[in-house]
């Protein structure tokens, strides 16, 4: 597992959350490659850094997370996306998973929960 490098991109409109996810990630083999503030930025950044692993907020200005998930999966069907959102209802989660996300983490979260969710994501 330590051999395989995962390239992590963080998408969230909150600067505080973006920086927190970047800091909190302590998984071996997971390398932070960039952060975006919304869906449009995320797609542009994708072309530049080609991440394999993404954390994705849902409620964002410009392009929202669900739409961005669908577009990223279109570009790379093997990309692993962890949706991190405060929207805790089932339909939101189903929608994101159906669009191609592989995991769902509810805000607020602890660093441990974040790492656990990323670890699960890499394993699937």
């Amino acid at each position, binding site marked *: 597992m330590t051999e395989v490098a995962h390239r992590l991109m963080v998408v969230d409109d909150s600067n505080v959350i973006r920086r927190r996810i970047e800091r909190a990630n302590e998984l071996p083999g997971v390398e932070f490659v960039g952060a975006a503030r919304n869906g449009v930025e995320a797609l542009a950044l994708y072309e530049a850094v080609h991440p394999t692993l993404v954390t994705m907020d849902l409620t964002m200005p410009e392009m929202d997370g669900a739409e961005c998930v669908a577009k990223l999966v279109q570009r790379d069907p093997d990309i692993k996306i962890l949706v991190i959102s405060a929207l805790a209802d*089932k*339909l939101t989660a*189903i929608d994101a998973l159906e669009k191609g996300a*592989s*995991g769902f983490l509810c805000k607020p979260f602890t660093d441990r929960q974040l790492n656990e969710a990323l670890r699960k994501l890499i394993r*699937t």
Partner: protein
Amino acid sequence: MAQPVLSRQLRWLPVALALLCTTALSLLLFTGVQRAARLQSASTALQLAAGLTAQPQLMRSELTLIQRGLETQTYVGDSLRTLAGSREASNVAYAQLADAIKAAGLDARSDTLAMLDKAQKLWAPLDKGLERLGNNKTGDLYSDSAAGSTLTAAGARLKRSVDELLATQTKNTGALSRQVSELAALLREAVVNDGRSLRALLLGGSALAALLLASMLYFSWRAGQAARAAGIAQRQVAHIMGTVREGLFLIGRDGRIGGAHSDSLRGLLRVGTPAGQDFEQLLRPLVDEKTLLAAGKYLGLLWKDKVNEELIESVNPLSQIEVSFQKAQGATEVRYLSFSFRRVRATASTADHVFGVVSDVTERVLLQRELDSLKSDTDSQSALLLQVLQVEPLQMQTFLGTLDAAVRRSNALLRAPGKQRADLQQKLQGVFREMHSLKGEAAALGLGTFVRRAHEVEDLLSGLRKRAELAGNDFVPVVVRLDELMTHGQEMSALQERVGQARSTAVSANDLPPERHGDTAVLAGGQVAAALARADLGPTPGEQLKVALQRLCAEVSAASKRDVRLLSEGLEKVPASLVPRVREICIQMLRNSIVHGIEPRERRALTGKPPVGSVRIRFTDSDQENYSLIVEDDGQGLNPEEIGMRAVTRGLLDATQAANLDRSGAFRLLFHPDFSTADTVSEHAGRGVGLDVVNAAIRDSGGRIGISTTAGKYTRFKVLLPRAQAEADSQSSAA
């Protein structure tokens, strides 16, 4: 999972075993047949060898006989023929012996052949000699003369041959005899050995056959057993599928329901044959579009191995859905179903079925709804209207003012800083007093909707009071109820305003309105007008108080199943400024007297008291310094010991303190916030806040309270309220 694998392996075991046994057995039989043939040859060889053993001696004896016969000129023809026969037989025997030894496989043993060879070599010269002997003419061996018989030339030749043969071959015949008997011995040994091994072989064969038979029997028994077990299991599965109330089913990759499902699935989904039908299509007519969309997406996720099962389960949108079934004549029946799904994997990698369970949760859902609606029960408009009409407008306004003030005071308590346990308890008690007092006011006016609301807040607070841990957020329901209480007051105020407008247009009075607020009679326009007309009479505050207390007495005695008569005196003399205070005190004391003082009718009869209890309230203003208010009941009186005991169970005193409790100490306990002598909590008593409220009201007025009581006879509370304070209060409120 281990069980089926094992049984799958077991199924091959009997076949393999039978195959093995059969192969072994045929191999064994084949060897046996071979061995038997060899044994036969060996025993033939033995017979031949045994026959040959005697031949050399026999031939020697014949030769000797011929020799003697020739000497005595007796007939030797027979012996010659015997000898020739023996020679021929021996030659045949030697040839056969060689063949038999080969057939018996004994030629592999070099000693056997060597021995045979040696014997044949010893036989060969003898054979030659005998051959020559046979060539001699046998006739005219003797010629008879006077001197006796003499040998003829032929006889002499024969005698020479015989003598020669005997002379040369005597040694050989012995050797040959030994040699052949040695061979015979060897052959015998071989026969015995072969016989023994053949026996062993046959024994082994029988054993194998027996084993085969036994295993066949065992496995056929087992197969029967397994078939029976499978039959039982199948019947049990059928039984389960037939009786289980949940709908159990499988969905294949094509989205269709599998052939095996529980019988109840038909009833739950109202479908005759669910097997083979598309699950989503089955749902389509039953649910709204949103649910259907979510269901479709969700079922799709179940096949996506990218998403783990735990997450899948947590987002199931069908865990509780409303379905509507079309019934005859366009009617629909609404039910609530709960679905859950799990992936079924035959191999570790991908799911090949989805296992679904559906159950009808309608009853549970409806029960929950009912509970929820009980909580947020809205009062019927007519009940509200009745309340408005029953209460004098001024009184209602006063009450609404009291309500507003009580809620504000409660809110101020909550707003004050402090979240330590003691602070919270203090807030709790403060709000409790406000609500209890408000409830009394509402009850005195017959405002049932307010009584119920205030009582609910009390319920909440007394629930909180018992908690070991208390936090600020425990007060959320309280503050929401206060908000509701305020809203309810606003509603009532708006309603009163509307009625006020109606009053100006009211023309005549026909009927009296229903007496009690709980009545749900729908008011006709005429009744409204009548009630309004009555509301116009405008009694004084003192008179209103009297009416209110009468109403309260009727309410409380009905609720607590007592028969009580209220006699009041001098209430019309209460100065207006003092009315709220006196009202507050009277309400709590009256309630207390009825619930804690007056005994049930039967008990009163037993002690010779009049069946209907009485409570007297007397207000006097004759004293220069104090107004006096006396509330007296002819009930069971106060029992200091009982009070002490209850204080112990309430945790207010320990046993020693209770034992040393004096009369006045006991009575003081009555005013403790946590003290109550009624056993059940009702809207009217049981929380022990009543006298606490009285005490607070008297303290605020700078007054005093005294108790006199006789067990079994009466209880009298005497309250003194200083005139000076009352006048000051009235002036400050006027300003």
